[in-house]
């Protein structure tokens, strides 16, 4: 009987709440997403067809855009433009590839920023959880830090960075961008992680005490697993912040090669080639989706730690 854990009972007994209708729900979610895009395109084209040619001007402000091809290119033109070469020069790459290369660079920078934010955010949360005094001392500063618009100081950050040189290490321009991205990413992560680490019930904390488990064991066995449902939304927010931070910081530091740069560059060419400007915009959207998707993937891998959330 010692090994008679008869796992067959699992088949006989119903009630795996979590699994019920999961594939159907998944399909419905994708369907809803696709429908959203179709509706958006529909509204765009409908307005372009029926809207006033000169838009709508109220009290001197244009509240609805012009419907000309210059202001609102057809959605199919935007897509077609993606397949055409970037410039008329010989051997120019197609627009989509140019955008993809730029987006990959930005994604890499944003990921570096996000990882830095993760390490700093979780590190701060651990310190604040461990020492109440640290929480009182640090939390106000962490909150205050977000009132400083570091993005506005992006050029300053870059010039500070350019002065850093430690041995063989030399500050790169992309690091300034990553730093700004991490500055935006660490905040939600620190706050979410702290809330998660403090979330275990007294009964669980006392149980660990009866096991004579120290801070480290309590952290690994109790606090970190319990923090996952709080951490995931914080990580998602952090990822979105890192992407936005990276794009904006690229623009304001003037970093070459990223999506922020071509966004500005192509927008400047919009009078001659209005559809082209939409390429990097789509690229930025895909970038955001990839970031959010990575977190969703992470969430799926950590499924067992979200059971409270799922069945609650």
């Amino acid at each position, binding site marked *: 009987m010692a090994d008679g854990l008869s796992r067959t009972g699992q088949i006989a007994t119903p009630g795996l709440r979590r699994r019920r209708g999961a594939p159907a729900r998944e399909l419905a979610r994708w369907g809803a997403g696709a429908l959203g895009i179709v509706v958006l395109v529909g509204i765009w084209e409908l307005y372009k067809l029926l809207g006033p040619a000169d838009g709508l001007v109220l009290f001197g402000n244009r509240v609805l855009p012009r419907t000309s091809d210059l202001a609102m290119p057809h959605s199919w033109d935007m897509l077609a433009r993606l397949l055409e070469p970037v410039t008329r020069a010989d051997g120019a790459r197609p627009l989509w590839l140019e955008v993809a290369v730029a987006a990959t660079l930005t994604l890499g920078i944003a990921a570096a920023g996000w990882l830095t934010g993760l390490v700093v955010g979780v590190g701060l949360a651990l310190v604040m959880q461990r020492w109440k005094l640290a929480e009182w001392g640090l939390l106000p500063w962490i909150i205050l830090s977000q009132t400083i618009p570091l993005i506005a100081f992006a050029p300053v950050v870059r010039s500070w960075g350019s002065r850093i040189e430690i041995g063989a290490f030399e500050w790169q321009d992309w690091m300034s961008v990553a730093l700004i991205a991490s500055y935006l990413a660490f905040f939600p992560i620190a706050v979410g992680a702290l809330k998660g680490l403090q979330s275990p019930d007294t*009964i669980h904390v006392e149980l660990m005490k009866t096991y004579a488990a120290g801070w480290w064991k309590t952290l690994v066995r109790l606090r970190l697993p319990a923090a996952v449902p709080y951490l995931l939304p914080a990580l998602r927010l952090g990822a979105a912040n890192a992407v936005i931070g990276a794009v904006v910081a690229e623009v304001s530091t003037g970093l070459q090669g990223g999506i922020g740069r071509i966004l500005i560059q192509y927008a400047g060419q919009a009078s001659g080639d209005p559809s082209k400007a939409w390429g990097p915009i789509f690229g930025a959207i895909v970038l955001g989706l990839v970031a959010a998707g990575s977190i969703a993937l992470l969430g799926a891998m950590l499924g067992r730690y979200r059971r409270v959330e799922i069945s609650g």
Partner: protein
Amino acid sequence: MTQMTGGTDAVSIAGVDKVFETRSGQVQALSGIDLTVAAGEFVSLIGPSGCGKSTLMRLIADLDQPSTGTVSVFGKPAKDARIAQDYGIAFQQAGLLPWRTVEENIELPLSLHGAPKAERAARVAELVSLVGLGDFADRYPDQLSGGMQQRVAIARALAEKPRLLLMDEPFGALDEMTRERMQSELVRICAETGAAVVFVTHSIPEAVFLSDRVVVMSPRPGRIQEIVTMRLAATADREEGLREQHEFFDMITAVREALHQGSPVAAVRGVETR
């Protein structure tokens, strides 16, 4: 009441007071508590809500410290006993970790204390069948009923074969049927493991059915009013039939009278108390 503190006693409490400092002043939760629980003995604590039963249990578990007096467990200070893992504990709520399966929850204390993997697996399998959850070993707590969760908690408390079990209203949330079945299981488990038990309950029949002695407490400040020795079959030999025998009812009456001391209870029989 024994004042002897031989190394063999599971718990010995001497002259314990507990005062909580709160914003609205001091709360005297326990006053002048002396109690000894012998090894292998089953002792229940019963008394009105707020009389300090949980507090007393928490002192034994070293989750709180007495304001005055001493608490020793197997001849050691309570703190040393906690660090030496001399007791297993089950609270009113099961307190299972939701991300761990039944097996993994039971395994928690074993893996925390670095038991070898093979030994752990064998012990968990043994415990899972002891509490009758063989078919549910790889379920998560949210897939279990309240009674099943409570059984997992009890298995977890037993995992390291403690010589002392502390249980605070472990069956409080269960229906009467499940409760009686769990009581019988507990009697069986204690007979098999020979552990001493300190058991908090609000149910007189439950206390009588399970215990060697029932400690009746009075409120504000919590004191021991009376300790009623159960004149029944040895706890290991108690079976369902006992619940319908007149000795059982006599003991229930005795405990009731101790609880309602001062206010008369009808039909006083030859009650043995000490």
